[in-house]
């Protein structure tokens, strides 16, 4: 039990430090997840199995995952800038942290004093034996003595969810085209009935950023994804095509006349 405590305690403190000192938001989230899992193990090792499991399911599983979802959209390469954007927030956070520190130190010293008087914390064992376990004990409290607070909290959460949905909701300007409509649209137009032309395949390039060539040697613009064209990252093959074409013409001059006609 002591070994579990030391391993998990060190890991969770390390996770906390890692979370604070990471430059990237995703790293911070991962360190925090490490801390939470270790806290859960600590809970389980101190006979609070239900609390430990719920810690993993709710915080590590749901909250952190949603957090990661948001962060991931940011991309691998981005990191936070360290420039202070809110004026005076450094001073304010130092003040808040020292206040918290005072609070924690007071609480721990109080706890130590109580422990010194009464070495055995009787609470847990008695709570477990009275109700027949963690789950039953918590259920009795939540749905018994604190049922009103519990229901009020749930009403608050549901209101929050509805509010978020109302705020995030927007009506579509026009109906989203369905699968049937899209395929009909595609087939009815002879230019796209067989699909758009695929990107080009050449000796040196065969990626999606390489355009296909039309029979007359010009570039087929619609063989490239629109996003690549807009960003200007599409591969320019015109020069290479011109070089190849010149070489071909030099080898076989009759082709030039064919091209003319």
């Amino acid at each position, binding site marked *: 039990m002591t070994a579990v405590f030391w391993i998990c305690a060190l890991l969770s403190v390390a996770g906390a430090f890692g979370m604070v000192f990471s430059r990237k938001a995703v790293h911070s989230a991962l360190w925090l997840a490490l801390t939470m899992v270790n806290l*859960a193990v600590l809970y389980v090792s101190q006979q609070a*199995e239900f609390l430990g*499991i719920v810690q993993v*399911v709710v915080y590590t*599983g749901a909250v952190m995952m949603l957090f990661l979802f948001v962060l*991931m959209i940011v991309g691998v*390469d981005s990191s936070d800038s360290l420039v202070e954007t809110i004026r005076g927030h450094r001073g304010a956070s130092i003040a808040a942290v020292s206040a918290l520190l005072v609070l924690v130190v007071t609480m721990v010293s109080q706890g130590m004093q109580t422990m010194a008087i009464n070495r055995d914390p009787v609470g847990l064992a008695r709570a477990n034996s009275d109700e027949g376990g963690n*789950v039953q004990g918590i259920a009795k409290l939540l749905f018994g003595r604190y049922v009103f607070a519990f229901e009020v909290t749930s009403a608050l959460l549901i209101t929050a969810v509805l509010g978020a949905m109302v705020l995030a909701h927007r009506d579509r300007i026009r109906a989203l085209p369905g699968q049937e409509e899209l395929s009909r649209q595609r087939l*009815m137009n002879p*230019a796209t009935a067989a699909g758009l032309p695929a990107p080009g395949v050449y000796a040196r390039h065969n990626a999606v950023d390489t355009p296909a060539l039309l029979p007359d040697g010009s570039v087929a613009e619609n063989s490239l994804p629109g996003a690549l064209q807009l960003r200007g990252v599409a591969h320019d093959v015109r020069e290479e095509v011109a070089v190849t074409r010149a070489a071909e013409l030099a080898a076989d001059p009759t082709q030039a006349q064919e091209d003319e006609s």
Partner: protein
Amino acid sequence: MTFNDPFWLILVKVLAIFVLLVLMTLFTIWAERRIVSRMQHRIGPNRTGPQGLLQSLMDGIKLALKEDITPTGAHKAVFILAPIISTGPAFLTFAVIPFGPEVSIFGHKTPLQLTDFPVSVLYVLAVASVGIYGIVLAGWSSNSTYSLLGGLRSSAQMISYEIAMGLSFVAVFLYAGSMSTSQIIEKQTGMWFILLLLPSFAIYAISMVGETNRAPFDLPEAEGELVGGFHTEYSSLKFALFFLAEYVNMVTVSAMATTLFLGGWRAPWPLSTWEGANTGWVPFVWWLCKVFVFLFVFIWLRGTLPRMRYDQFMKFGWKVLIPSSIVWLLIVATARALRNNTSMDTRGLLVSAAVILLVIVGISAVVERQRIATTERAAAAKLEREQHARQLYPVPASAADVASEAPQAQVVAVEAGEERNA
């Protein structure tokens, strides 16, 4: 609720579970290839070993010896960590799965189960939710669009279906009066929960396919859209770990279904009349058979059903599975309360409620189908009318018509163009 095993016995159990899971994975891959082949009128791998049994072992060795590629731009530490996070929890789940009753190993009496505690079914859910991290991180750290989209899709899917899955557990908890796997099995001595709680089982069976990212819910790996999904950029041993995790997860959800609804290692009815069927090592055989039935259904589904569309799949999870499981839960809780307080027998009530619920779901499915069919017929009739009108009043060919969606006008335009060329 530990079993007071000596340390060496715990080690033996851990090793046995690990070996069992790896063997099950190898066997399931082989079985999947053979069975799907049979369903598609092919033969499947039959060269390596008897009936091709060693094929997946050989494939595994080959996979491990391949070049390990880390793409440039990938986040290296997380890229390596992701498959480990994905595989570890898959194995961890099996710590609470009971394989059989008390047996004696080298003179020690111990249940065929590594450990158990009062909330062990919740432990399975918790560990599974940690496993999702592996997939999300794999998608993010690869620095590839396909991987990121596959990872996000996969985790959104697993989180959504985990809710339905958790709700289907609640009915079992209510009836077993416990969340520990061994006690749930004990409570199924008389009647398996699949009979008593059929809707819960149906919801679990559907959501377990979604949870493991298997066909027809294998959207994260939809080849036509996402290449390989979250593992697009993975190769060699790291890819093998993802592969292993997927198959171990399949075995895990099958074992959970067996534990919660099919009486775990208990012998099925005609066999349970035999005295020795539920003692000693024999029940392990029943457990294995039940798990194999589930694995076969997984394979069967893959051979039968096409992949669902992502929005349909999410709609199904959130708008059908979760509401219906909440309604069912309400019924179960009422029945349970009635039984606790008035000591009346509520089995008939439960079964009839289950039948009514299934009928309602069936009727609404039929109505929905009818509705879709009617709108489709209306749309087809409208199109026909429009085409008819166009034939009566031909529209003069112009460049704008070529881009429009009227087939007749295009034909006219193409013909006109040919005349001009001539």
